[in-house]
């Protein structure tokens, strides 16, 4: 029993980090140009296909080299998409941009069938096998997902706090006009954001390949649930996104055991809708609310004492 619980929690944390990465990646683009990338599930898929289909199978490269090449290729693709779609559409009605990115997703989807075929691909000898400890059997891929996610989040944090382009992007997210006046190139900032975000998608595609196998629908659910994680945590900040992802991952995994399997996927959306109705700012809102209550209580106590 304890073993099963541990197993559920580890896989929950791993999925939580996947959701958190997706939420972080949504947030990045949202902050840079006020648009959401609705095609990103297909970009995660593209990452998986380039990694398994092209680099490993067609070019016969080693796993690590393939991963590096995939991430670089997706970065270049991100720059291209920034120039073609995101920069021209940044001042349009948002609906137009939403539909444009959705159509980009469909184009990638159809292209993937034509290039790599309709059969699901599976990387061989990549993050396979299991760890066993304390009576729990945990797939190695879950442990690797946690490690990789922690590294990426740490790197992002460093990038935003310590480097000049990172600080510039933070400025753009706060006030576009003012940062343009201060001499920060908003367009360059959008390009950098897209490159970063597509690279994260590539990483997601690579590390989730052993779990979901590489197919067209591999990322549909994680993309949507990543958004749920963002809402549950409170959109717009990195730590909130991570907290939301972890909560969602663990709750969902445990719900999968307690409730009938049918409802496993619906739990995430139900949780999101509950948060939207009762705490639109997510966990951040809950935290603020608790703090306010505590402060009120302190103030009341103070008054009584006087």
């Amino acid at each position: 029993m304890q073993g099963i619980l541990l197993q559920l929690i580890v896989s929950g944390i791993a999925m939580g980090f996947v959701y958190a990465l997706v939420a972080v990646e949504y947030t990045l683009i949202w902050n840079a140009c006020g648009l959401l990338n609705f095609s990103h599930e297909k970009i995660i898929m593209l990452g998986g296909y380039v990694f398994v289909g092209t680099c490993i199978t067609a070019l016969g490269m080693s796993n690590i080299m393939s991963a590096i090449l995939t991430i670089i290729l997706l970065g270049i693709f991100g720059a291209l998409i920034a120039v073609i779609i995101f920069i021209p559409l940044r001042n349009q009605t948002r609906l137009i941009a939403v539909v444009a990115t959705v159509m980009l997703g469909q184009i990638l989807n159809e292209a993937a069938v034509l290039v790599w075929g309709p059969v699901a691909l599976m990387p061989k000898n990549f993050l396979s096998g299991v760890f066993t400890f304390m009576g729990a059997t945990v797939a190695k891929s879950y442990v690797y997902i946690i490690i990789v996610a922690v590294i990426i989040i740490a790197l992002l944090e460093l990038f935003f706090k310590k480097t000049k382009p990172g600080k510039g992007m933070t400025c753009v997210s706060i006030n576009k006009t003012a940062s343009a006046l201060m001499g920060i190139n908003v367009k360059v900032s959008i390009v950098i954001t897209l490159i970063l975000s597509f690279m994260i998608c590539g990483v997601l595609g690579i590390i989730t390949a052993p779990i979901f196998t590489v197919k067209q629908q591999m990322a549909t659910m994680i993309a949507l649930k990543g958004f749920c994680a963002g809402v549950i945590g409170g959109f717009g900040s990195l730590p909130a996104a991570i907290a939301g992802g972890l909560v969602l991952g663990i709750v969902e995994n445990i719900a999968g055991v307690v409730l009938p399997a049918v409802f496993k996927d619906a739990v995430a959306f139900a949780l999101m809708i509950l948060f939207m109705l009762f705490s639109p700012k997510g966990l951040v809102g809950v935290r603020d609310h608790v703090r306010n209550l505590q402060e009120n209580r302190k103030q009341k106590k103070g008054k009584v004492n006087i």
Partner: protein
Amino acid sequence: MKTAREWKKYFPVFLMLLLAVIPAFVTGNYYRTVCCQAMLYAIVALGLNFIVGLSGLMTLGTAAIYGLGSYVSALFCVKLGWNPWAALIPVLISGWLIGKGLGYPSLRVQGVYLSLATIGFNEIVRNLLTNLEWTGSGTGIRNIPVYEIGGFAFDTQIRSYYLIYAVLLLFIVIAWKIVNSRWGRAFKAVKDNPDALEVCGINIANVKITAFTLSAIFAVVAGAMYAHFNRYITPATYTTDLSISFVVMLIIGGLGNFWGCIYGAYIVAFLPQLLRPIGLTYKLIYAVIIMLLVVFFPNGIFHDIRRYLGLHRVLKKGGEEG
């Protein structure tokens, strides 16, 4: 000699006459089916116009509402043996409930978040329809009865065509009345200046919920018509892609353009069928065409073509002089 402006008044009549005679030219059941499909899409698009076109809210969950309409009607007829016309009552009630239910979250979430939340709604519904036993799970519902009036069954393509045509006509009249009523003006005001609306003493929350309810009712009725026309429904029809297609219809027709909904629906319904002979790559080409249309003609095809040709400016000048 009448001016263009005077002729424009008769445009709706011409359009509806054109739609009425289409079956004479379009032979072959396949294309007639696509025509019926296009008219059903047009009904949904007319309803969606209240939310997306006029009020400027971005919802991407319409396919789920359309699907609920189909399923409610089909389940009442197949499992409980109701008459398809009687089943329209639970369908309308369900549409009203869904509209209210979706309207409330829309007050909480703004802009792009609303589209994501509604995509989530779409996915929940599709998931439940696929997995629940009593909705027929993945295989859907078969042998749905057709509409019937006094022994006259709407069972062939051409009969269904005129039934759906009549319903479309009815909904065009209703939608036209709504757009030009107090409600319609309130919807437009939500998009243009919500603050002014509140100052006028109109409750924005009520206006948004009304828009959602109306649009849901249009969508469920179209969904029910679809179930009885196709006689077989599966959850695979009601994907997020279909929701996106509904919004694409509005964009191609021009956001907020009343008649644009109808030709947008026809373009979106027919384009994939016309491209089908290309073979394997037709879906790819379809997606590319739609993306280019959306990026280069964001105000609707006809509007932007006129603008690119410079015609639009001329018309506007004429309007100012007159």
